[in-house]
């Protein structure tokens, strides 16, 4: 259970969108690292999943960056997060470990956007970005995260 706390200002909204960007960057960087470190070339389904996850996260990031720019806030450079991911990355994950990590990524992102949408809907603040556009972008991304959870679980079930 999480409490729906209304987003109270442009500053707080920009901060939450920055966190969304970082989460997407973590997914993108970890997916790329998994592909590099595991023997993904032997399993086309896993390689496709990782490629798709990285591309989708890059796309989500760009859409969030558009909103952050409208709020006149700064984004978080991908290279910076990539370096942090590399510094903390543990390379001993097997196929199941990689799939599980991807599942956590997608579920976490879904939960984040779901809470963020609820917090925006609960707020009566007039933001510096069009509310409908903001919610439209976030709902679309949330939908794609839900699809992502399904894709990973399908692959997990196939391999059981």
């Amino acid at each position, binding site marked *: *259970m*999480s*409490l729906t*706390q209304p*987003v*109270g200002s442009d500053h*707080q909204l920009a*901060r*939450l969108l*920055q*966190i969304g960007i*970082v*989460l997407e960057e*973590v997914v993108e960087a*970890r997916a790329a690292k998994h592909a590099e470190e595991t023997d993904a070339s032997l399993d086309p389904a896993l390689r496709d999943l990782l490629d798709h996850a990285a591309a989708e996260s890059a796309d989500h990031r760009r859409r969030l960056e558009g909103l952050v720019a409208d709020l006149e806030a700064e984004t*978080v450079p991908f290279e*910076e*997060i990539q370096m*942090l*991911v590399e*510094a*903390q990355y543990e390379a001993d994950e097997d196929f199941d470990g990689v799939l599980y990590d991807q599942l*956590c*990524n997608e*579920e*976490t992102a879904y*939960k*984040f956007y779901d*809470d*963020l949408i609820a*917090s925006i809907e609960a707020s009566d603040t007039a933001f510096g970005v069009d509310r409908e556009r903001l919610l439209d972008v976030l709902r679309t991304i949330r939908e794609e995260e839900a699809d992502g959870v399904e894709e990973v679980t399908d692959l997990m079930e196939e391999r059981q």
Partner: protein
Amino acid sequence: MNTQAQYLKAIYLTQEQEDGPASTGDIAELLDVSPASANEMIGKLEDRGLLDHEKYKGVDLTDEGIQQARDALQNYCIIERFLVEVLEVEDFRTEAKQLEGVIDETVAERLDTIIDREPQCPDCFNAEEDVCGLLELEAEVSSD
């Protein structure tokens, strides 16, 4: 983090500072809520078996309450450290408080994959300074 977690964290920190039960007044002050609101929530947490409340003595967390409070404190530490290390936010204490109600523990776990948190977390949290004691130390070292 939800309201329950924020209360448990505040009670845990107050008990640590007092080295005993926490008074309703201190809890209300820490959370910036009215004593009546604090009392209401304390009653709910008691019903859930997370604390014992004795009139005129104060509030004592149960083992389950302590566990949940420590998890909440750890989430808070992750948010603070993330704001400092990744987003370089100067007023990270204020922002962490605004964000702890919005950032879920699953999200905090992901943010934790890119920060340098010490294994003894959350024991290194300095309640008076409202920040991880080790993070403060690092800031002092880097400013030398």
